């Protein structure tokens, strides 16, 4: 057997330690969350980054400096690192706090505007994103293009002073409350030899004439997703994001941030704490609890390692895909453990507590392994990274 280690790519970056200042920041966030919960400002829920839309809470976070943390001060942000943001984000998710209103803007739009946006675009959106006053959606998927973004059909046709967009986007979380979104559209005819060419990103204000937003209710009936239909929507030249025709590369860059964050293993964490509450004083479940906790601890270390790697300017696409695959399956494992270890039927009508968290988690579970690229597609990325494709 010759050198086996060198034949495989690094599947996960080396461990990352949080900077010493992170402890004080974490303590501040925990104190704030404890205060809010004591005051009954919100109830912990599962899958809060999809369903916990609370503009008051988001603006309060903005006031405290916990949004747009990595955005430079001159654009209204706080000039901190990705690991500072990581600490705040994981504390919010672990507490089951309502973070949906600012989620997309804070996680993706801010960093992407810093990377690809024009000076004017940055000045227009970033200060309001950091204040928690401007909400965004993401328009990637289409009825015939889910994880296969090269199949996007929304057309952008050049007109005097800008572009006209025509097409339909689906699964856009929060579009009915949002101010704007990033739309991926085909700005040049499809080239079968290079499926990824000719795509561009546009910043579309959602109150533009020709935009129609229709709910796509979840199987629970709840309204989080939308269909966004463009009928010759005019987008001025100044609202093209980044380079024309480079949309594919830009979007892929965004996905590395999206796939490895703490939201990929903490969506059902509030259910896990509620489960421990139900198990208090009982015995016989130690092993199952320990199994879950060892997986949770490991996932957090993996996610943190990817965050540290992103902070130092790398793009660990393969490791991000691995975290998303393992993490989102883990979110489902918590649901299974809760069902198996406690004989309480899920109750979607309950105000709060274990039965309600379980109900939300069961009904939201199908989304975990779909959003951000289906796990099967991500495994294809991992296989390619190992040289199999």
């Amino acid at each position, binding site marked *: 057997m010759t050198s086996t280690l*060198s034949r495989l790519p690094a599947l996960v970056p080396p*461990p990352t330690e949080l900077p010493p200042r992170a402890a004080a920041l*974490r303590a501040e966030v925990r104190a704030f969350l404890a205060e809010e919960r004591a005051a009954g400002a919100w109830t912990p829920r599962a899958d809060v980054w999809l369903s916990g839309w609370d503009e008051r809470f988001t603006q309060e976070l903005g006031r405290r400096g916990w949004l747009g943390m990595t955005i430079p001060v001159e654009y209204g942000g706080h000039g901190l690192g990705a690991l500072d943001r990581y600490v705040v984000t994981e504390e919010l998710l672990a507490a089951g706090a309502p973070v949906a209103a600012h989620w997309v803007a804070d996680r993706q739009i801010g960093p992407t505007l810093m990377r690809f946006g024009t000076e004017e675009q940055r000045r227009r959106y970033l200060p309001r994103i950091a204040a928690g006053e401007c909400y965004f959606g993401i328009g990637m998927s289409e009825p015939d293009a889910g994880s296969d973004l090269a199949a996007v059909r929304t057309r952008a046709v050049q007109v005097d002073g800008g572009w006209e967009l025509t097409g339909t986007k689906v699964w856009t979380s929060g579009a009915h409350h949002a101010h704007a979104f990033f739309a991926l559209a085909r700005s040049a005819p499809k080239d079968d030899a290079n499926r990824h060419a000719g795509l561009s990103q546009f910043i579309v204000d959602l109150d533009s004439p020709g935009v129609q937003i229709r709910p796509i209710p979840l199987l629970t009936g709840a309204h989080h997703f939308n269909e966004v239909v463009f009928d010759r929507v005019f987008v001025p030249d100044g609202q093209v994001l980044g380079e024309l025709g480079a949309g594919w590369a830009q979007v892929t860059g965004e996905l590395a941030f999206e796939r490895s964050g703490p939201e990929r293993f903490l969506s059902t964490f509030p259910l896990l704490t509620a489960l*421990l509450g139900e198990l208090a004083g009982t015995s016989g479940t130690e092993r199952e609890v320990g*199994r879950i906790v060892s997986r949770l601890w490991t996932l957090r270390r*993996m996610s943190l390692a990817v965050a540290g790697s992103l902070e130092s300017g790398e793009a660990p696409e393969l490791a991000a895909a691995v975290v998303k695959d*393992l993490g989102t399956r883990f979110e489902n494992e918590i649901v299974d453990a809760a069902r198996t270890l406690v004989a309480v039927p899920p109750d979607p009508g309950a105000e709060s507590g274990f039965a309600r968290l379980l109900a939300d988690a069961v009904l939201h579970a199908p989304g975990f392994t779909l959003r951000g690229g289906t796990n099967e597609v991500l495994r294809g990325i991992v296989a390619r990274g190992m040289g199999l494709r």
Partner: protein
Amino acid sequence: MSDVLDLAESVLAGSASAGTDLDGALWTALEETGLARLTLPEAAGGSEASFADAAEVLQAAGAHAARVPLVETDLLAGWLLHSHGLEVPDGPLTAVAADLAVDGTAVRGALERVPWARGVSAVVVLTPSHVVLLPVDGLAVTDGANLAEEPRDRVVVDGADAVVAPVAEGAAAEFRLRAALGRAQLLAGAARGALARTVQYAGERVQFGRPIGKFQAVQQQLALAASEVAASGAAASAAAAAADRDGFGAASAAFAVAAAKARTGEAAGEVARIAHQVHGAIGFTREHDLRLLTTRLWAWRDEDGSDARWQAELGATVLAAGPDALWPLVTGTP
């Protein structure tokens, strides 16, 4: 790749073989390059490296199915002797925690499943009251083995004249954690080695007119194995980092080691299962050396505390601490 990993790879590459006894030539090479006693202090003939460095070397040793008592010599026996003011003998060493009757320097009793006992220069025993250094002359050794055919021997001590020191407080707890930490690195390495071999095989083996690695179903399985390998490596490395940062006496390090042994032990079965499934019948034979890695995965997951035992311990800690303490425990920040 770091310097220490480069060095370890250059020494260990090509060392895997079907032999079962300690690989003396490899051990000599490890001693000459300073890798054999990596974490020990200079006064004990060591290189004073971190556990993070040791993790890289041990993971490489696991990946190459190296037949050397690195964990036993460096993390266990060397540490036990040096921390109790005893001289560390030359050569490969082994260590176990067991009860022996100690009367002055006369020691009696039986030790079960001692790793590498038949090939080492001394056996170190951590008893409830003493650290005991047993020279191998005068020990009755009966060969035994684990699933990977690695020596796990029975050793009978009948009044041997030993070097003894009273045991320090906390030594037993630290011994357990060090053994589990070392085993977790070996497991993570073996998982990675098994995956690397399997990916290579899938690229070479042709069925239905193309390499089996081109089939989506096989790719999905290999990606699942890769996730387990990634988790295994991340858990083992993060536990080493926690030991460096906080020391074994800290609750955070104990938590990290328990989680890492539980997680690497759990990954071991899944990686071995997929490796064999992809290899087909040939990997299930003695002629193929996939078994050198998979039998180690099966053996090591049950040594130094099985994944089930560490899970139970971790679960008991978490349940006793209560729901609000879970997140502080996971983040290591109270």
